[in-house]
């Protein structure tokens, strides 16, 4: 078995699918946080300080944070709270709100397309055992929006994919993604059965409203009361989204979820840029994105990551998980799927080349927690 040092050297030098030199890079910060009982807010502060602080990014701005609450809150792994398995933890959410507030954010809007409902996001949070009142008091101007449908808006916002889109020319999303100055992806450090890893890029697949992209989306117009996931449209390509939204470019050409979902995620990352990626890996799961995936197990990587470029951040996060972020299809963790990071890199979103990324704080070798071990 390779040592940590050898492994880092090997993946940094990997010639396979070398990044385009033009793809932007930004620093990525790593901090250790062994437990939610630690001062998570202080650890996040350290993480952001290592990036130069959040003030220049968010002062006086509206900040929208896409959190990860995948699946119904009633589905639990071994009866554990979702926050210690497959959801981001509310302490991290609250800590992020605190720091955004301290940095001068005018409004902090947490968003997620809550599973199979268009009800208030606060109710999904309560159903997950979160203390919504505590989150609201973490900073001034905290609000919530369930982006699974129109929510508090009257129309959807359209996000064009710049250049050559992979799957759809544009995506219709809840206006919260448009009416913001800064967009943050707050993700969990975990695997994904379809995409290999769920990090800040894949987290944004959950931006798609099920009202348009859901299994029971309306054919012509959105269904504002969605009650299902996005398998038929997103994963399998068995149907088009509501006709009110841009349609799939090559509908029927490919039904492989391992191809489709990474390409859609890359499209979304190009059309709705992520300004700050935060990845929570204090406690998590390995082997899949949720308890419904057979064989998932709990893990305690004890790590937090943040970066100003989502591809760079995900590349470092993948390396922390013990993977080569530039691995091609067929190699772990992309055994049955395309590499989302490289697809996003192809869109010019950022570089997945560890050799070009300035890692600050704890090193990758020190933070390494092999998900496949």
């Amino acid at each position, binding site marked *: 078995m390779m040592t940590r040092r050898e492994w880092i050297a090997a993946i940094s030098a990997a010639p396979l699918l070398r990044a385009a030199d033009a793809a932007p890079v930004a620093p990525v910060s790593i901090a250790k946080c062994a437990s939610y009982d630690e001062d998570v807010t202080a650890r996040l502060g350290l993480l952001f300080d290592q990036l130069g602080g959040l003030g220049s990014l968010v002062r006086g701005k509206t900040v929208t944070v896409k959190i990860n609450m995948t699946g119904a809150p*009633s589905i639990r792994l071994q*009866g554990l709270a979702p926050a210690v398995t497959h959801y981001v933890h509310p302490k991290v959410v609250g800590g992020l709100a605190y720091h955004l507030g301290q940095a001068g954010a005018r409004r902090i809007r947490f968003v997620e397309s809550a599973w199979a409902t268009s009800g208030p996001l606060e109710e999904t949070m309560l159903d997950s055992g979160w203390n919504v009142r505590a989150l609201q008091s973490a900073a001034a101007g905290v609000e919530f929006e369930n982006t699974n449908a129109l929510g508090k808006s009257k129309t959807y916002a359209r996000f064009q994919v710049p250049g050559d889109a992979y799957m759809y020319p544009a995506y219709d999303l809840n206006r919260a993604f448009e009416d913001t100055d800064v967009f943050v992806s707050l993700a969990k450090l975990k695997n994904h059965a379809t995409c290999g890893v769920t990090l800040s890029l894949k987290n944004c697949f959950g931006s798609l409203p099920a009202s348009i992209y859901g299994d029971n989306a309306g054919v012509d117009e959105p269904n504002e009361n969605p009650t299902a*996931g996005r398998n038929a449209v997103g994963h399998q390509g068995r149907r088009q989204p509501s006709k009110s939204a841009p349609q799939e470019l090559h509908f029927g050409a490919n039904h492989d979820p391992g191809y489709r979902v990474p390409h859609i995620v890359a499209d979304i990352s190009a059309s709705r840029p992520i300004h700050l990626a935060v990845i929570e890996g204090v406690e998590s799961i390995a082997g899949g994105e949720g308890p419904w995936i057979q064989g998932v197990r709990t893990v305690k990587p004890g790590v937090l990551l943040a970066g100003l470029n989502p591809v760079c951040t995900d590349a470092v996060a993948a390396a922390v998980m013990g993977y080569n972020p530039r691995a091609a299809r067929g190699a772990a963790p992309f055994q049955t799927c395309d590499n989302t990071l490289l697809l996003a890199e192809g869109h010019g979103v950022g570089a997945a080349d560890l050799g070009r990324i300035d890692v600050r704080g704890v090193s990758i070798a020190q933070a390494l927690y092999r998900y496949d071990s």
Partner: protein
Amino acid sequence: MRGERWLCVLVCLALSGLARSQSAVPPRWSKPADWVPARWPWPDAASLDLVAAGPLNCLLLRPVTADFAAAAASRGLATLAVVVPSDDVLATVRRALSAKVTGIALEGDFPEDLAAAVRQLARAAPVVELAPRSRMLANSAGPVLATYQGVWPGMAETERLRAGPSGSVWIDTNTGFIRAARSWCDLPLWIANRPPAKTVVTTGRYLQAIADAGVSGARWVVALDDDFAARLARRDPKALADWSRMLSLAGYFERHPEWREMREYGKLALVQDPAKGGLLSGGILDMIAVKQTPVRPIPRQRLTPGSLKDASMAVNLDAASLTPEEQAVLHDFTRSGGTLLTGPPGWTDQAPAGDAITLDRSELERLNDIWREVNSMVGRRNLGVRLFNAASMLSNFLISSDGRTAVLNLVNYSDYPVENVSVHFLGDYKHAALLTPDGVDKPLELYKTDDGWGADIDKVNVCATVRLEQ
């Protein structure tokens, strides 16, 4: 844990003989309604030490010996001889009465003339009929309404194994049936189902069985699997500790007889003939309960304007069987602004077929037509109380006759404690407290919500209660 520890001490004292009285003690009950029953698997008088402390005061025996009946009586315990249809019934009853048991328990499907002969033979001795559900409502002249048929409460195995992110949880429960039966009859209600055969039954599942009946005002007739009974008989310390927890939980409901006097509260009413679908488990009442929506069953025969007081929605499951007077009550309800949902044309509520107490797949699919409509009508409305982070729980919301006190009883059917439960109430309550079987009685902070008041509960093991006062 305080109450539980104290009970454990009492059980240990009893087992060590320190608390054993040498002389007869007065009965630990004054009327059959006070009986807290258990099937007693041991024939030796020493086993009675196990109930020296705790609420159990009525032992169901099979077979019966005069010595044991006398020993039980000397400790103030009631004894019921269990007689089954395959017995030489009248001879067995005569022998039991001569052994001086307190009463008779007829368990099974007895012809009415034979049951009447037993009652006549028993004279003043109470006869409890542990009947099939389909027949139990006919026994409302007896001392107790009882059935031997029940589902074994807990998370449904299919749900435990289900894969997929949708994750609606199904809970096997008798609560819907119990509530339907209690809406029909004021008698104490016993549910005397046994643990599943050839299955390892954990303490948690026993506690769930006790709580499943208790939260709805009934009593589960405690029945132990062979393994647990054997371990308890040899005073295995772990078994004794588990037994103490069971007694503590049963005692929790006995310490609050006022809960049995309170009425169910909810702005959703379910009009149903209790002799039909109400006798089933897994029917519409349980479906609504799993959605954490408070619903009160109203027997159609008791449908009056007063019975619909405070309701804003009603579901009429069996429109075709309503009398003109009953139809008029519902008509007035809708004219005064209430929302009424009826089944599709030709839809009828079905009674159990044979010994079945749950719905088969085709019946469930048929019920789904109604369920979808109910679900759509209720939506996310707060119809009295809404629970969050409570997917593995069921609740029962009760209110006092003067409306000033309400209690929300909660049962957790998972194998793990549930943490961070939020409860949103309608109504203007000033004080809230959390009560648990282990003696906790602590104030809860109330906070304003969009439609009333909210309270947060840190943790629910198997059972907890929120008491609200105006």
